[in-house]
């Protein structure tokens, strides 16, 4: 996250309502002073010992534009070009020839937010399309703040309707519907510190099975309660900012998790800034995950999965972001992050056994122009 020298008048941020996996929301108590357009390109690769797996090339565009003194519109378009091999079960990779598969995903979303004196209302729609998966979603969010603007309450509601047709026709017309709720509070603690805490509740019903995983059979409903707390503090003596985040997830699938992230934003001379970061994630296995060999623990009519993403593991992500402010409202940024996931890294032990470490790296370049 880039940092610039000097404050932007009237830019105090309230509760962040970002969409999981889609688009973060404009968060402010007034219409932003300026709009901006942003382009990013993400190159993602993952692997396991002895084998490359997936590669994803992801160009994306985001635009935010004030339409009036009380109305702002924002939206994004992204495209994922995917190729490579993903596991059929545990670490056994797909693709008869070993060359894997190719796939794509395109997605877009738009949000309109109207600001009033002490509250705002935002309405959004989102759509994504893959060869075998279509998702349509709508949302509404209401934020209200105190007269001194030091505390903001956020309320969000969303619904999505997904359709799945996959596995070369073996799965046709399956549906999944999800309702999401959010309640959050953002509180300014001091002239140099701010905290935000959000609770989201997701309730889904329908087809959760992965049709590309051998013997995969998941429950037809899922409830996820997530509690995210973030804290930012600026240190004027160092001109740097500490960013902390902690999240706990309670999942009806059993994959309860904890996540802790720490980052430091340090402005440098001549408009440069650097942001090193470190994230740790640990999760339990789903109650229907059974370790190798495949089929072990499988019982007729009972849920089952050999998907390692639902195993018990811990994961670390060190990363660094470098940004540069240019003239005339231009800025550029470069992010590099490395991810590794291991059963032995699960907090407290009891990680899933018999699995290879999973590694990934992503490089993201971006350019932004305010207008």
């Amino acid at each position, binding site marked *: 996250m*880039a940092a*610039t020298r000097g404050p932007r008048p009237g*830019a*105090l*941020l309230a509760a*962040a*309502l*970002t*969409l*999981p*996996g889609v688009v*973060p929301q*404009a968060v402010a108590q007034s219409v932003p002073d300026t709009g901006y357009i942003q382009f990013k390109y993400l190159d993602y690769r993952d692997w396991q010992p002895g084998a490359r797996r997936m590669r994803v090339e992801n160009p*994306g565009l*985001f635009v935010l534009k004030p339409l009036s003194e009380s109305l702002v519109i924002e939206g994004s378009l*992204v495209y994922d070009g995917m190729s490579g091999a993903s596991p059929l079960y545990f670490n056994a990779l797909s693709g008869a020839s070993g060359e894997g598969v190719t796939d794509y*995903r395109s*997605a877009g*979303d738009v949000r309109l937010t109207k600001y009033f004196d002490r509250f705002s209302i935002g309405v959004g729609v*989102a759509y*994504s399309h*893959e060869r075998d*998966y279509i*998702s349509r*979603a709508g949302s*509404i969010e209401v934020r209200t703040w105190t007269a*001194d603007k*030091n505390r903001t309450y956020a309320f*969000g509601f*969303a619904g999505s309707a997904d359709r799945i047709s*996959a596995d070369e026709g073996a799965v046709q017309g399956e549906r999944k519907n*999800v309702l999401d709720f959010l309640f959050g509070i953002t509180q*300014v*603690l*001091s*002239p140099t510190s701010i905290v935000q*805490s*959000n*609770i*989201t509740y*997701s309730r889904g019903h329908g087809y959760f099975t992965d049709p590309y995983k051998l013997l995969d*059979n998941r*429950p*037809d409903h899922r409830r*996820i309660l*997530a509690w*995210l*707390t973030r804290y*930012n503090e600026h240190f004027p003596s160092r001109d740097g900012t500490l960013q902390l985040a902690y*999240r706990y*997830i309670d999942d009806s699938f059993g994959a309860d*998790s904890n996540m802790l992230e720490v980052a430091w934003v340090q402005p440098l001379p001549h408009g440069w800034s650097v942001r090193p970061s470190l994230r740790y*994630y640990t*999760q339990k296995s789903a109650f229907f995950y059974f370790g190798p060999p495949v089929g072990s623990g499988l019982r007729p009519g009972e849920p089952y999965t050999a998907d390692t*993403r639902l195993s018990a593991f811990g994961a670390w992500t060190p990363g660094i972001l470098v940004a540069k402010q240019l003239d005339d409202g231009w800025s550029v*940024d470069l992010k590099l*992050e490395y*991810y590794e*996931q291991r059963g032995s890294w699960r907090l407290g032990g009891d990680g899933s056994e018999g699995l290879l470490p999973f590694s990934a790296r992503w490089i993201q370049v*971006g350019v932004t122009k305010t207008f």
Partner: protein
Amino acid sequence: MSSSASAQRWACANLKMKALRIVVAGLVIAALGGCASYAPPQAWEKQYLALPAMQFDADKLDAKNIQHVYFSKEGSAGGYGVGGGGCGCN
């Protein structure tokens, strides 16, 4: 596929711990809401709060991309917001 009896037994066995965590989360939220007694800064003291580094998710496209990566490689996601829809990646 409906939940099995074994799933229900598992859920009951963890209910106490989950309820405790939810109560703790609720207390934290309530504590934040009860910060009326705390002395917040005046309007003219908020210059540092306006810095981009002090904002949550100032880079919206970056947050979107990175959360999507984690969503596709880990068991679940949430907490950042609502309304994004689904994908075939998880």
